[in-house]
């Protein structure tokens, strides 16, 4: 905190960032010559029922998708993950920790009420209030006093958000938060219509009661059946919003989901049953829309385990896995090989690598054997490990490949243990494992989100890894205002951590999506993977 204050004093000498362009129309851009269908209606399968439409309670991908259509924050992401003005038409970083947002005058709620800066203050204070019990406190932890407010140690009024006037909002953060505009795109940071919330309480999210400020408003909601949104005529960019009605289906079963899609009852699906990607690609190549996301599939190595606390063992395990075979033969959905904690496309740090990753496999195996021998393992004393994963065909397939690599190349005997998902999560969070399946997708596009996996004592650090030098580098980076210097520091922290091998990165996730050919505006270059309906349109078919 002291460092933060001293930096604030330096604010005057800091080059202030200015972003955002006034009144940018951001909705569907229909290329010239494309004829639109008379019926602009879309059906999206959402993968599961949303846990809530209350922005203080949403946490899952399906709920974030729907609330991103219903609500708009100060900023928003387009379907290429580019940050654009949202309710705020411009913003200015007036000091390393202070940001001023200028709200557009034509922003309205779906019932026609004017949207003001106070609506943001009300929303954020309500979500950060311990009584609201949000699961997604992480965004608020960056705001000034956020952690203390969430913990009930300070009143909600102490939160770093202030309405300067009806159309000016001042946001203060605890540390310089370069990615604040990215963070504010999330629906959890959207405003809330105070009057309807106070009138209906918990029921404010029901059809007929929900007042939203995004491109859509809620029309119908039947749990486990459908969620229907219709165009919000009061949205500031309604004229450029083409889709007039979007229906979200909550079908969980991937095989059923694919049948619904093929029966023409859904226009987009976000997943495919394991092992069907290549078959679908051969049958319907134009409908395949795989999207590489900011997510890493990796194996966590328990650094407190008597065997795995030896770095040489951890390194040997990582070296011999042939990622090329893994992504091309075992997975085959277009995943990218991974050797770093950071995946391609992440802001705030570069993808790191290992010196050995370009060596021929035979050489890597030779080196790995030497490391194991130095750690006391070899043909006379083979290493025994246990690999834990949650029950899933994909995890089993990857697990079988990896343990066969260890067995055939290093003679390691690995037992596989599958557990029900929640049991597995507890096992992993409690550190009761040796090697465990793990995966991470970022909440905001910044290296910090990935670095949470290796920071000492971080809630997300299931490897129980701790290197004070890495933490110091991360802290230093996060207090650095200069973007290039910050990036160098966070990259250095990543490199430092990865040289300790707390995790085995395997591949960068791909969302194997399918969309009908008549759905326009769909991209495959959207690392945050949230697709706003307002940017889509239906081509005449």
């Amino acid at each position, binding site marked *: 905190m002291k460092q933060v204050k001293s930096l604030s004093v330096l604010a005057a000498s800091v080059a202030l960032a200015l972003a955002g362009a006034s009144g940018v129309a951001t909705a569907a851009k229909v290329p010239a010559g494309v004829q639109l269908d008379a019926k602009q209606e879309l059906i999206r399968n959402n993968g599961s*029922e949303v846990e809530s439409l209350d922005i203080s309670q949403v946490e899952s991908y399906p709920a974030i998708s729907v609330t991103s259509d219903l609500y708009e924050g100060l900023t928003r992401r387009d379907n290429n993950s580019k940050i654009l003005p949202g309710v705020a038409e411009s913003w200015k970083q007036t000091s390393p920790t202070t940001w001023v947002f200028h709200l557009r005058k034509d922003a309205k709620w779906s019932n026609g009420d004017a949207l003001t800066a106070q609506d943001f203050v009300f929303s954020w204070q309500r979500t950060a209030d311990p009584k609201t019990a949000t699961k997604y406190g992480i965004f608020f932890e960056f705001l000034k006093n956020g952690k203390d407010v969430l913990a009930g140690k300070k009143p909600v009024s102490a939160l770093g958000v202030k309405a300067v006037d009806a159309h000016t909002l001042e946001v203060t953060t605890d540390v310089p938060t370069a990615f604040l505009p990215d963070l504010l795109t999330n629906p959890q940071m959207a405003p809330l219509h105070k009057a309807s919330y106070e009138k209906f309480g918990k029921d404010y999210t029901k059809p007929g009661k929900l007042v939203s400020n995004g491109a859509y408003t809620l029309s119908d909601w039947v749990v486990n059946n459908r969620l229907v949104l219709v165009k919000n005529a009061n949205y500031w960019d309604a004229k450029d919003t083409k889709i007039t009605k979007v229906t979200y289906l909550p079908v969980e079963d991937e095989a059923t989901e694919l049948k619904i899609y093929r*029966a*023409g009852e859904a226009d987009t699906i976000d997943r495919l049953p394991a092992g069907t990607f290549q078959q679908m690609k051969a049958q319907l190549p134009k409908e395949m829309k795989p999207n590489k996301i900011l997510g890493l599939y990796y194996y966590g190595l328990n650094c407190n385990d008597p065997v795995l606390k030896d770095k040489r063992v951890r390194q040997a395990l990582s070296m011999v896995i042939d990622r090329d075979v893994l992504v091309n033969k075992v997975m085959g959905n277009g995943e990218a090989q991974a050797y770093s904690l950071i995946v391609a496309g992440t802001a705030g740090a570069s993808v790191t690598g290992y010196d050995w990753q370009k060596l021929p496999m035979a050489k890597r195996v030779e080196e790995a054997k030497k490391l194991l021998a130095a750690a006391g393992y070899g043909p006379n004393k083979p290493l025994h490990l246990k690999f834990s994963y949650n029950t899933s065909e994909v995890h089993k397939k990857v697990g079988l490949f990896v343990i066969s690599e260890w067995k055939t190349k290093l003679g390691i005997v690995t037992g596989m243990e599958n557990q029900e998902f929640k049991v597995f*999560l507890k096992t992993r969070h409690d550190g009761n494992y040796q090697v465990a399946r793990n995966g991470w997708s970022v909440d905001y596009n910044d290296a910090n989100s990935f670095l949470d996996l290796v920071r000492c004592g971080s*809630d997300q650090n299931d490897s129980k890894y701790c290197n004070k030098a890495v933490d110091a580098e991360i802290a230093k980076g996060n207090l650095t205002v200069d973007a290039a210097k910050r990036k160098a520091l966070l990259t250095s922290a990543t490199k430092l951590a990865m040289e300790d091998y707390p995790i085995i990165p395997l591949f960068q996730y791909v969302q194997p999506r399918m969309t009908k050919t008549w759905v326009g505006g769909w991209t495959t270059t959207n690392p945050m993977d949230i697709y706003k309906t307002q940017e889509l349109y239906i081509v005449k078919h």
Partner: protein
Amino acid sequence: MLSYIFRRLCGAVPTILVVVTVCFTMLQLTPGGPFDSERKVSPEVLANLQAKYHLNEPIYKQYGYYLNNLLHGDLGASFRYADWSVNSLVGNALPISLTIGCTSMVLALFFGVLLGIVAALKQNSLVDYFVMFLSNFGSAVPSFVIGPVLVLVFCLWTPLLPFGEFRLTPAYILLPVALLTLINVSTLGRVMRGSLIEVLNSNYIRTARAKGLPLRTIVLRHALKPALLPIVTLLGPLAVATIAQAVVTESVFAIPGIGRLLVNGAINRDYTLVLGLVLLVAIATVLFNLIVDVVYALLDPRIRY
């Protein structure tokens, strides 16, 4: 009879209480909680969540709160679906599951008994072999295989029926009802056939034949009632099994019924939702058994309560 029903209903209360208590305890003992996710929540956030749902209090207190709410007809707030109470979730899903379940039970009863009678009367004929094949097929091939095949044939290859955004209309419930009916017919038909053959071989039927009564009268007036007794016995467990089958059929046909709620409730550790649904199944089981016992008395003059 009325006093018997009253006594049985009174006796059901402790049974249901035991079921709720055992389920409550088992849920508490199951590793992993409602707030465990890939992204571990911070201790402060977890404390807020636990306080909101009283999970920070001793188990006996949580149990007390639950029973108190239950006595007031409140099944509590869902842990997973924050905007809904368990009452409204169950209230929305139950009519759908009931419609599909009851329709299929009635159809299965009709066709099961009919096919069983035909097979018993035409024993070892082609008709009998067909009925037995159908019975064995329905019992041997699991619903998660038949269901997707039905969808493939009737919704994809020959798009005769809609599939996707579910509506409670005949077109949408046709396939799930057909699947559940097939499964239940296979059991009922086999039992009816065996039961009728046994009754037809009994002494009093031989007497009836000897008296020269026509087959129609022998079957309808003398053999059917006693032959139906095993069917009635089966109906209770079969009705409960139909609820269990809903777990598969509702997933395959994307139906928003209680089967899907139960699966999601268990996966998400949605304690209140699972308890509410277990309570519902327990009450249904008790009621089905009571109805079966009452029907016994109507069918068998030797049974008196």
